[in-house]
């Protein structure tokens, strides 16, 4: 049912019945495909269809471009759309033009309210149709409704007769029709009370009304942890202990998650929910970044099975001090190595996704610099809301702003966003999304921001020294040592956390067996956990350094003694492939030795070893010539 096909006069009559229904009944009615048997609305099929059509697209609540497209697709014919005089171009571009034009208060609504006279609609009447603003009273009523809703926002349709008491119902219905036909107003069902409403396309706060300065806020439940680094550390340590077998599509089996999981820290619930960073996602991200940073690579083993194994670079990276590991990692982000593959999600680049700037568009603006500037602008040590950041970084700080003045058709892909002759709002939306995603995909996982909840439950953040290092590549930061951790190693090898200390937790997880989360006995150090740590390249000195640094009390002597003893008992052996030649008797062995001329050596009287297995073919030939066959 299209909004233009509705008999609004009849609709207003049926609304009285609708308003007698309780909320749950309204919702059940709208959610079912048909009026349920016994419902008083059963007799009002057209009304039901209208309501469901409006309910399907809550344009006043989700006023996206997509919602606009769906709305006009649902309610307008091609002729009706074309009547707005858009150029002959791709369909999406017609919509884009319509969107820009018809959702603009200054260009569309205000001139209509102030200046429209009979005949205003002429240019917009679709081929084969007649006008909607049939009488001066309909025009006047339309102007009044548009003016009222433009000022106060969407209005319940049921309230219209009350608001315009002197207006005849037929005129009112005509005014609704006209306002909808010319997209002066849009109709939808309001979510909070399921009331049909009519109103102009919602507009964003005018630029002038947006906050230009930062307003510091008080943050609670502050969270700050370079969890990506810690997850990568946990994943790398786990894959050194036991390489992760990969599926044919290179994804991990569930077992890998079980190996990594115990060493991963737990985020506060609000962080997980707000930033949508679940445990599985974290594991996948960590493993992908390990590969992107070449700290781990995929190798074939056994019967063609693929495994993710630590690379030599990873083996060298893991035992380094946490701060150095973090610095390394941040450096990689700032200066990716040539040839690195840049995918949307896991590119090892400064920005969380790539910008495809066509060469015919001239030189690309320095988007990374603009992003960095936006965050460096936040005063040090101060929490501001994300909204505050976005409002401050509006159009004049937007590196994509020059696109607004560009003529002709063009198309730019920024991450997942394809921009084709975008309007101001679209350009701003992409820019804001870029800032938001930089915050959530770069700064937050690397500990570059501390996030918290403001007094009005809004999300706020503060840029940390790690964040400034990432943004500028300069300066220094404290990591690990600065945390006021209340961590105690007990003589019974329990590691007790009396206060939360996430970086200490991450460091100890590399050599302690996890026993708990957040507070209490979080780790137990035992021979097995130390041997695993030794296998990852840690040394007794590394472990003692961490314990001495993060613990608030002296490490008990018996604990240190055992840790050093366990490390001391570790040995590393090398393996190599060799070919054993088992000879039937001593004489044959001597003949082989003679024929091989130094290529083989005797392990016993009858067993010989070919050290360089690559020479097997040559040896086979040589022996065959001597009458000795494999």
């Amino acid at each position, binding site marked *: 049912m299209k909004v233009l096909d509705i008999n609004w006069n009849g609709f207003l009559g049926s609304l009285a019945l609708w308003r007698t229904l309780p909320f749950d009944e309204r919702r059940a009615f709208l959610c079912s495909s048909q009026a349920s048997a016994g419902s008083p609305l059963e007799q009002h099929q057209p009304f039901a269809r209208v309501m469901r059509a409006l309910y399907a697209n809550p344009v006043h609540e989700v006023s996206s471009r997509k919602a606009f497209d769906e709305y006009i697709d649902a309610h307008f014919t091609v002729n009706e759309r074309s009547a707005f005089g858009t150029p002959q171009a791709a369909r999406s571009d017609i919509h884009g033009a319509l969107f820009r034009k018809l959702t603009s208060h200054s260009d569309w609504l205000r001139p209509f309210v102030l200046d429209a006279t009979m005949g205003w609609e002429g240019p917009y009447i679709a081929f084969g149709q007649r006008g909607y603003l049939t009488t001066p009273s309909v025009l006047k009523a339309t102007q009044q409704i548009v003016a009222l809703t433009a000022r106060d926002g969407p209005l319940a349709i049921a309230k219209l007769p009350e608001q315009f008491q002197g207006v005849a119902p037929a005129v009112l219905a005509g005014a609704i029709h006209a306002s909808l036909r010319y997209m002066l107003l849009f109709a939808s069902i309001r979510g909070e009370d399921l009331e049909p409403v009519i109103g102009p396309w919602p507009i964003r706060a005018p630029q002038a009304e947006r906050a230009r300065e930062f307003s510091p806020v008080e943050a609670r439940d502050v969270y700050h942890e370079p969890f990506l680094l810690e997850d990568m550390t946990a994943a790398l340590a786990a894959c050194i202990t036991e390489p992760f077998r990969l599926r044919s599509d290179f994804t991990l089996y569930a077992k890998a998650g079980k190996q990594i999981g115990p060493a991963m820290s737990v985020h506060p619930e609000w962080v997980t929910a707000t930033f949508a960073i679940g445990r599985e996602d974290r594991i996948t991200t960590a493993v992908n970044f390990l590969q992107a940073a070449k700290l781990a690579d995929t190798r074939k083993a056994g019967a063609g099975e693929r495994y993710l194994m630590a690379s030599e670079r990873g083996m060298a990276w893991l035992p380094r001090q946490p701060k150095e590991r973090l610095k390394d990692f941040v450096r990689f982000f700032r200066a990716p190595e040539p040839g690195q593959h840049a995918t949307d999600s896991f590119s090892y680049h400064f920005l969380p996704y790539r910008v495809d700037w066509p060469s015919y568009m001239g030189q690309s603006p320095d988007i990374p610099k603009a992003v960095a500037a936006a965050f460096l602008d936040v005063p040090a040590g101060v929490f501001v809301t994300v909204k505050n950041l976005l409002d401050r970084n509006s159009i004049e700080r937007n590196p994509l702003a020059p696109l607004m003045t560009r003529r002709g058709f063009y198309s730019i892909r920024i991450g997942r966003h394809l921009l084709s002759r975008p309007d101001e709002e679209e350009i701003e939306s992409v820019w804001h999304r870029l800032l938001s995603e930089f915050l959530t995909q770069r700064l937050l996982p690397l500990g570059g921001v501390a996030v918290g909840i403001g007094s009005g439950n809004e999300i706020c953040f503060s840029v940390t020294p790690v964040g400034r290092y990432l943004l500028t590549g300069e300066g220094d930061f404290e990591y690990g040592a600065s945390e006021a951790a209340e961590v105690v190693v*007990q003589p*019974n*090898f329990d590691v007790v956390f009396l*206060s939360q200390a996430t970086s200490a937790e991450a460091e100890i997880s590399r050599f302690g067996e996890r026993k708990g989360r957040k*507070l*209490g006995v979080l780790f137990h150090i035992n021979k097995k956990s130390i041997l695993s740590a030794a296998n990852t390249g840690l040394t007794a000195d590394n472990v003692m350094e961490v314990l001495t640094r993060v613990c608030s009390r002296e490490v*008990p002597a018996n604990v240190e003694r055992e840790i050093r003893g366990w490390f001391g*008992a570790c040995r590393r052996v090398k393996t190599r492939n060799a070919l054993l030649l088992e000879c039937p008797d001593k004489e044959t062995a001597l003949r082989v030795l003679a024929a091989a001329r130094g290529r083989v050596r005797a392990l016993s009287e009858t067993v010989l070893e070919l050290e360089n297995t690559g020479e097997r073919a040559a040896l086979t030939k040589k022996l065959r010539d001597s009458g000795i066959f494999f």
Partner: protein
Amino acid sequence: MSAYQPENPLIVQGDHTILVEVASPLYEEARDGLVRFAELVKAPEHIHTYRVTPLSVWNACAAGVPQSEICETLERFSKYTVPPHVLIEIRDFASRYGRVKLLRHPSGALVLSANDRPLAEEIARNKHVAPFLSQRLSPLEFLINASARGEIKQALVKIGFPAEDLAGYTTGEALTLALRETSLSGRSFTLRHYQSDAVGAFHAGGSTRGGSGVVTLPCGAGKTIVGMACMEQVQASTLILTTSVTAVRQWAAELLDKTTLTADLIGEYTGISKDVRPVTIATYQIMTWRSRQGDDFPHLSLFNERNWGLIIYDEVHLLPAPVFRITAGLQARRRLGLTATLVREDGREEDVFALIGPKKADVPWKVLEGQGWIAEAACTEVRLPMPLDLRMPYAVADDRQKFRIASENPDKIEVVRKLLERHKGEPALVIGMYIDQLQRLAGPLGLPVLMGTTPQRKRDELYEAFKAGRIPVLAVSKVANFAVDLPDASVAIQISGTFGSRQEEAQRLGRILRPKSGANQAHFYSVVSADTVEQDFALKRQLFLCEQGYGYSIIDSGDIE
């Protein structure tokens, strides 16, 4: 309280465990509050762990601690907000205690009384409890057979409504005894304040609120004395159950030494002798002896051979299952449990609560150590390398042989010699698992050896000589594990032995914890072959001792001066 209070010592966790920071200025105050309603799980140097369980809360309720005080203590001393569900559950546990009471009916039977109708109905319909209810006297009361007193208490504990037993006790056969002010051996003797407190809590002035329960005191704190003082309060014939013949003899010796009882009033009921007197001391072993599996336990009849006014269960955490069963039928007699820990290896703490009674006293050993009532113990592990000629046999041996080869490292003799030299003049025990090893060591060092096959008479002579100081060092086999009461030993050197159980290790340590003159310092050494399986076993001991709160250090044999 919502903010983080770093100076407070407690962290209350959602799983009902409580961490206590010893370094906190409020530690002692918090511990004294906590010990009333939580059980100590482990006490390593810096952070101690307690656990709140239904039983620990019921013990607190039985001792008159209101739930509001429990919650208040947690909230007052907690660093962080106490998890709300923990407080709710504590309130729930506490609200269950005392809702059911056992009272005496004029007919001599018992009355089970519930405090409200729904609970009465629940009990009446519960399949574990209902079989013991013989008649409904009123909507809230049931008549039950007196013989089912123990079993119904067990069943009620299992369903979470522990009964307050106010049905009273039989007086038992009268027996006059008093504690001496000067022991027969001529030493001045009075009860220590914590012993008096424990006795008072147990006896409760002879009312039905007392008369059954468990006194928890650390090794060396004088549990036997508490038992004797309770006997003095009850003034009735007493059956004492303990762990071994040696312990039986020591109870007898202590009773003769410190009470007015004479030898003719004290009987020994063991594998050697079956003498039932007004005070009879028996072993758990003889009580649970039977000729064949499936037969009855003939010696359990001892429980009914006299009209006992008091039964003392020494080391109640070791109480065997058949004794539990017979104890269920002895609920009309006063019962005292003595132990160093309520933690049972078999997890039957609920039965101890239901059948022996609630905890009546619990004094942390650190308190007693601080007051000088028990010695300070320093635990040291001495590691020595395997001799070169044993390395290869060790390397190729199977696990069992490896342990023995490492344990019998002949170089341990020299280490023991050095240790004894270091503690010259202090009474010392050398404890070993292998008789051969002990004998090899005893020869060069000139030590007498006491082992399982040593006749009792010879043992008594050795003990006597050791107590008198004529023998400064005694080499003992596993017999030292239980109730070898050697009051003057201040050094123990363990040269071999697996880590058996928590109790076993505690008992060994207990041998040296009695207060010493002078520095009041005891030393417990374990001599271990380095980098062998013996070291792995020693690690278990290390963890146990650290969790008990003892200082533990590791030195190399070369470091002994």
